[in-house]
């Protein structure tokens, strides 16, 4: 007779084995490795919660210490490869294969290990794509997640950094997997229930709070005049003319400059209330002056940001908060919001080629993509109109039937022509291609494809790729704003001049931007301390950003 509940039986057997080291659902921190040896089987798909910010650090250390004879060849399916332990498990042979989305701080080491054959790479994903695969072909057998507190039944409170937890738990718990949560504290009653108890099998009380990285704090003191100039170009040349109200910002200094210019330069241009009112965005401290000046109506967040807790609590009109008053973030929902309900993504990158393809992968660094490919892509399933979306669609296809023409999401890449250590932003050939050839990948790791990019902004000007009618025009439009990089100096002067006459390229002087305004005095806050003042003392920056 056929058996249809093998997976459930296997799950029950794992939970039973784990119960030997637990009291109810509760496992002592020192027994965490024994728990994992009991519930994880060789070759399992394991999601070790490494989010963009929040890290299940105790559980990753516990997994690293397992007896490799019992637990080995795991297939790690996790959005963030952030902690050294996330890669140490591959060095030790605990894990073999990796599917991920983001690897910020481990980007150099992950590249070395891929070249050294220590890791078998599945694919580099965008967040939403990896989450989607959790429900189709990368469903975890075991999920190791992090929360702020749990009650004795196993209800979890994630605090402001809910991030990926609901998605990971949903995919695991409802498909016969085992869910283990590390918590900072076990309490009688959790402040709010982010994950219901019947989806959680084991709880480990950590001896120290889980690690959270402040990824979205940009010190205004480090913003350059070149970045201020590019920010002014973006506001006057894109935000204003398209009337972009619903948007997502990347995490770089150029977009931080935009946030700090809204209440000053944006105000002067009369754009308040007309642009930048609704965001899919982490709680960026740099947006505080704009919020306090009444620019921003609503923000939904992927995760939280260290130090922003009290400010968010006090500004619940702006942020999404729970019954306990603290932020509720959710990466999957916010990525969906960015894809379908935002009219613009604007962010930086490391390399842009002659057709506008961009990548953060270089031959020595595989940083992953995070959310950028999703935020920075046109949603082909979108059906609701909006002014910026229709205007962009009209520019791309002026002769199309008005009622049948698709709109276009504005996908803007912003940066200075020379980046860190004078490395040029523009290249003839992406390093990602070289990497794909070396590693024999089926697909080069491109972050945003050129056909999704609508504008590129540098200190030299704006290239509007929607108005380009051939790949040759596209190339010259890009060269025409690539400054004194080799790509920029290889421009065809006559063609660039014609593109400028058509408004495909617009220089600061074409937009009436006075270079004297590109001065740090125009920033609404010039230091972290200024931001603290704007927040009325509610924002509490992490110590590494305190220099007063």
């Amino acid at each position, binding site marked *: 007779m056929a058996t249809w509940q093998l997976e459930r039986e296997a799950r029950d057997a794992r939970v039973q084995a784990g119960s030997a080291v637990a009291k109810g659902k509760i496992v002592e921190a020192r027994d965490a490795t024994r728990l994992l040896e009991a519930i994880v089987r060789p070759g399992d798909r394991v999601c070790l919660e490494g989010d963009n910010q929040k890290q299940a650090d105790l559980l990753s250390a516990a997994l690293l210490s397992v007896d490799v004879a019992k637990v080995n060849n795991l297939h790690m399916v996790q959005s963030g490869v952030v902690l050294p332990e996330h890669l140490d498990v591959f060095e030790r042979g605990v894990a073999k294969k990796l599917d991920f989305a983001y690897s910020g701080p481990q980007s150099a080491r992950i590249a070395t290990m891929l070249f050294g054959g220590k890791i078998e790479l599945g694919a580099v994903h965008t967040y939403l794509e990896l989450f989607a695969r959790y429900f189709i072909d990368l469903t975890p057998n075991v999920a190791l997640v992090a929360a702020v507190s749990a009650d004795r039944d196993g209800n979890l409170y994630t605090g402001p950094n809910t991030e990926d937890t609901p998605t990971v738990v949903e995919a695991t718990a409802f498909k016969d997997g085992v869910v283990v949560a590390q918590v900072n504290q076990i309490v009688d009653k959790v402040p709010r229930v982010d994950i219901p108890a019947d989806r959680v099998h084991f709880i480990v009380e950590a001896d120290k709070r889980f690690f959270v990285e402040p990824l979205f704090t940009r010190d205004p003191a480090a913003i350059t005049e070149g970045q201020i*100039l590019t920010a002014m170009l973006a506001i006057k040349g894109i935000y204003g003319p398209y009337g972009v109200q619903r948007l997502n910002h990347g995490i770089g200094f150029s977009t931080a400059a935009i946030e700090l210019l809204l209440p000053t330069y944006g105000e002067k241009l009369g754009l308040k209330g007309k642009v930048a009112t609704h965001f899919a965005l982490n709680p960026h401290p740099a947006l505080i002056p704009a919020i306090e000046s009444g620019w921003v109506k609503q923000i939904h967040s992927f995760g939280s940001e260290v130090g922003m807790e009290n400010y968010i609590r006090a500004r619940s009109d702006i942020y999404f908060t729970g019954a306990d008053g603290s932020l509720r973030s959710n990466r999957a929902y916010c990525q969906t919001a960015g894809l379908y309900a935002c009219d613009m993504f604007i962010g930086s990158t490391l390399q842009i080629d002659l057709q506008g393809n961009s990548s953060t992968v270089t031959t020595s660094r595989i940083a992953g993509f995070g959310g950028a490919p999703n935020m920075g892509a046109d949603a082909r399933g979108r059906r609701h109109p909006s002014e910026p979306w229709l205007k962009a669609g009209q520019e791309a296809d002026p002769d199309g039937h008005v009622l049948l023409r698709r709109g276009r999401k504005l996908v803007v890449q912003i940066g200075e022509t020379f980046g860190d250590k004078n490395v040029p932003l523009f290249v003839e050939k992406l390093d990602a291609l070289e990497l794909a050839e070396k590693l024999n990948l089926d697909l080069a790791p491109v972050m945003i494809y050129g056909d999704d990019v609508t504008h590129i902004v540098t*200190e030299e000007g704006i290239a509007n790729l929607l108005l380009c009618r051939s790949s040759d025009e596209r190339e010259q439009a890009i060269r025409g704003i690539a*400054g004194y990089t080799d790509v920029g100096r290889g421009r065809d002067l006559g063609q660039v001049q014609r593109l400028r006459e058509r408004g495909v390229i617009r220089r600061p002087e074409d937009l009436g931007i006075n270079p004297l305004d*590109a001065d740090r005095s125009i920033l609404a806050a010039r230091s972290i301390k200024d931001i603290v003042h704007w927040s009325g003392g509610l924002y509490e920056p992490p110590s590494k950003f305190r220099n007063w």
Partner: protein
Amino acid sequence: MEDFSLRHDARQPAGGARKMAIVGVVASGNLEVLVERVVPERECLVEIRTTAEGFGAVWNAVVADFVDRYSPGGLKFSINDGGARPDTVSLRLAQAVRLMEVEQ
């Protein structure tokens, strides 16, 4: 250290009446520009003193574009460069010519 000067013809005299102005700071990756209205009004002179050697071709390109875009006739620019990126140099030169238009 490398010193050189570039002389260009300008289409028209620079705007404003100010005699002299200074923008920027001497610092690593930055530069200071002293601008004076002391050369014939259809000419422009740029004197460069830089800590970064071997970038003559880029300086030529940056200064030629600047003269083409801003037509700073009658102005002499003395640059004290701490290895600034070309985009920073362009911005400072543009700021200098605009500052000469501002009443004191």
